[in-house]
């Protein structure tokens, strides 16, 4: 899979190929020089993933918008720190977005909310997201296929960590695993996911 692939810019039809010139690394480089038009292109090419990720983690659309906005602000502010030698632009972007989302969900949880059960935490998302899933893009289908190649525990551990924002210790508790084994499952699962999809080479 091409790590630099971009999502279609603002189109409701996920199958439409991205416009040429959407090299995210180049857009980041221009953004770093203050090129707001380039940054707008970057936003258009990535906002569905950034917002969608935030929404899966924080679960509240209003907060997801705030998280996405914070993420894009940091992406704009630190664009010059992106090093193409170290990984793809989309991974760099989503790492920022993910960290913001996890920080939000952990800080938003007061001690009382931390008592919520696993099931309460995993209420179904709103219908818009479900409808979105029905129009699965090629990339989404590819990920789901790759995830199917993981063991149940690996997949659940990764989903709880990545989308649930839980620490690996909490994941172990939620999945009834011995303390310390969740981090191994997460690592093994990510390695298998990486090798199946063919990124991070």
């Amino acid at each position: 899979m091409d790590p630099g692939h971009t999502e279609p810019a603002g189109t409701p039809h996920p199958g439409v190929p991205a416009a040429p010139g959407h090299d995210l690394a180049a857009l980041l480089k221009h953004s770093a020089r203050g090129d707001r038009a380039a940054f707008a292109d970057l936003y258009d090419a990535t906002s569905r993933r950034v917002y969608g990720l935030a929404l899966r983690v924080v679960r509240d659309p209003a907060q997801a918008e705030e998280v996405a906005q914070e993420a894009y602000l940091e992406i704009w502010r630190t664009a010059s720190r992106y090093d193409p030698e170290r990984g793809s632009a989309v991974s760099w972007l989503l790492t920022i977005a993910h960290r913001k989302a996890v920080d939000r969900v952990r800080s938003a949880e007061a001690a009382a909310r931390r008592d919520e059960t696993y099931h309460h935490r995993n209420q179904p998302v709103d219908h818009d997201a479900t409808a979105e899933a029905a129009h699965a893009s090629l990339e989404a289908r590819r990920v789901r296929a790759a995830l199917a190649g993981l063991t149940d525990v690996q997949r659940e551990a990764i989903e709880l960590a990545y989308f649930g924002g839980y620490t690996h210790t909490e994941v172990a508790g939620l999945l009834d695993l011995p303390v310390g084994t969740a981090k191994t499952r997460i690592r093994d699962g990510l390695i298998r996911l990486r090798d199946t999809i063919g990124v991070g080479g």
Partner: protein
Amino acid sequence: MNDVHALSGAYAVDALDPAERALFEEHLDGCETCRAEVESLREAAATLADDAAVAPPAGLRDRVLAEIQTVRPLPPVTTAPASNVSVLRPRRWRPWTAATLVAAAAAVLAVVVTTTVWQPWADEEPALTAAEQVLEADDAVRASQEFPDGSRATVVLSRSEGRAVILTEDMAPAPSGKDYELWLQTPAGDMEPAGLMPDDSDATVVLDGDASEATGVGITVEPDGGSPEPSTPPIAVFDLSEA
């Protein structure tokens, strides 16, 4: 179980608690294997977002593009140290004036003659590892000041590390019953307590707290044990707002 490398997967998906994260990031500094692995696992994790993609509300685009108008992108990392020598900037510490600052500095810092060679790495305290991370960070910027008594202080900030370090040379100890207290200034102008300076004439101190957004560092003289807010005009101000 004690193998720190095993944390790489959890780290790649932000599934470490703050203590483990700090431990692993310290490890990452010296382990290229783990750095490469974390990068590749982050690439894998990023593909998960493909399955979660949802069109954001239309208003978000306008808000994002409006917000970036007021924020300047950080300049690229340079290999040479940034020439960020700063003079006292009393504006940021309203209502104190330059005259007050200079007077305060002269009153507080006695003349100290010393033959101590400045060796910031002479101490073997654990805190130095965090300090070295800041000092050697790609995005480290420095602001230095010399004081009337010949002492010198340098603040080094790495926004990527989220930490600031202060290096002092020939600093006189605080007057008896007092401590030098360090402060991180937030973009909103608040002064956050960032720890006390030790009595050593030459010291390397990592400031407490997250410096990733800090617009300045200050030093004040406080009663022994420090204060939650500055109670005196600062004796030194390091302007990091352009860094």
